[in-house]
């Protein structure tokens, strides 16, 4: 189906690109991307995927917008305080691009619901701040054969890697298992510069766009790290898929999804976004 004059103008900066063009924009408009977390990483990813015209964007977050979020979760505004994050995010996305269908999931992701939720999508974006859900997303995507991008941010650093079935290591190949409670800062004491969340979240959106359009090189088998204080990107080449990996290896020992215990933090909320 041909684009309307409004769509041609809206997406003109994509269409001009030889690598995207009309065919790439049609792929974007037909694509379905799930963003887990409407926080620091999910917010910029959602904004750019909506702007790019990704046809269906799912957004998962059980939380409501609070004041401390606004320093980095730029899809939400002061007038959204107290609102469910998914509704706030959906409103902004629809305003940016009314052609996009936004599906909201105001719930916690766990072993009981994740497979059903991700089934509808072509690509998953990890925008969560806790390891139980990061491992859950990895395991579910491996089991379901879904590509996804993992990312993390802390203080002045960020990183991301992409998993495409059959094309390199999964998150567990690299990080094996959950760190113990309190081993790695996840709560308020860590801190983060908002713009770093923006950079890494945008890179996640870019991985989704590249995957959908079939262009460029994805971060499969690579961990892209960013040091904001040094102003330096450093790419770590990852070893190939681990044949002994517990979930994607030749003889998986993890065959069911795991709901790990949550990290300890006085007012941590389960499954909440960065």
């Amino acid at each position, binding site marked *: 189906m041909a684009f309307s004059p409004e769509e041609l103008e809206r997406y003109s900066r994509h269409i001009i690109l030889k690598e995207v063009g009309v065919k790439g924009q049609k792929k974007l408009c037909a694509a379905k991307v799930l963003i887990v977390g409407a*926080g*620091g*990483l999910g917010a910029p990813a959602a904004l750019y995927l909506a702007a790019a015209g990704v046809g269906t964007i799912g957004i998962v977050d059980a939380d409501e917008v609070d004041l*401390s979020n606004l320093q980095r979760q730029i899809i939400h505004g002061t007038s959204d305080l107290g609102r469910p994050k998914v509704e706030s995010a959906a409103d902004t996305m629809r305003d940016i691009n009314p052609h996009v269908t936004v599906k909201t999931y105001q719930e916690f992701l766990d072993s009981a619901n994740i497979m059903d939720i991700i089934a509808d999508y072509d690509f998953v974006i990890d925008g*969560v*701040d*806790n*390891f139980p859900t*990061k491992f859950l997303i990895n395991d579910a995507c491996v089991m379901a054969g879904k590509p996804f991008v993992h*990312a*993390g*941010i*802390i*203080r002045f*650093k*960020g*990183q991301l890697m992409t998993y495409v079935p059959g094309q390199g290591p999964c998150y567990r190949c*690299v*990080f*094996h298992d959950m*760190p113990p409670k309190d*081993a*790695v*800062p*996840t*709560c*308020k*004491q*860590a*801190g*983060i510069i908002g713009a770093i969340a923006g950079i890494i979240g945008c890179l996640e959106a870019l991985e989704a766009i590249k995957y959908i359009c079939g262009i460029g090189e994805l971060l499969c088998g690579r*961990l892209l790290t960013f040091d904001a204080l040094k102003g330096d990107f*450093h790419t*770590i*080449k*990852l*070893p190939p898929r*681990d044949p002994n990996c517990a979930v994607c290896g030749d003889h998986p020992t993890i065959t069911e999804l795991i709901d790990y215990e949550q*990290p300890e*933090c006085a007012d*941590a909320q389960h499954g*909440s976004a*960065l």
Partner: protein
Amino acid sequence: MNITVGGGKRSVEAGTTVAQLIEGEKVENAAYVTVAVNDAFVDHADFGSTALFEGDTVEFLYFMGGGR
């Protein structure tokens, strides 16, 4: 001997082990760092016994979740 750590050049004593390098680099949260030498992961149990050689490339990979 000269090695590369996290993309940067380092000069270390011959025979330096991964464990010694971690200490020398003041790696944060060393108990939970993942180490790759020449694109292959080194098991935590082998940090003390894995010696580095001239020209080796070492990478430190960290758990990164997020902050609220």
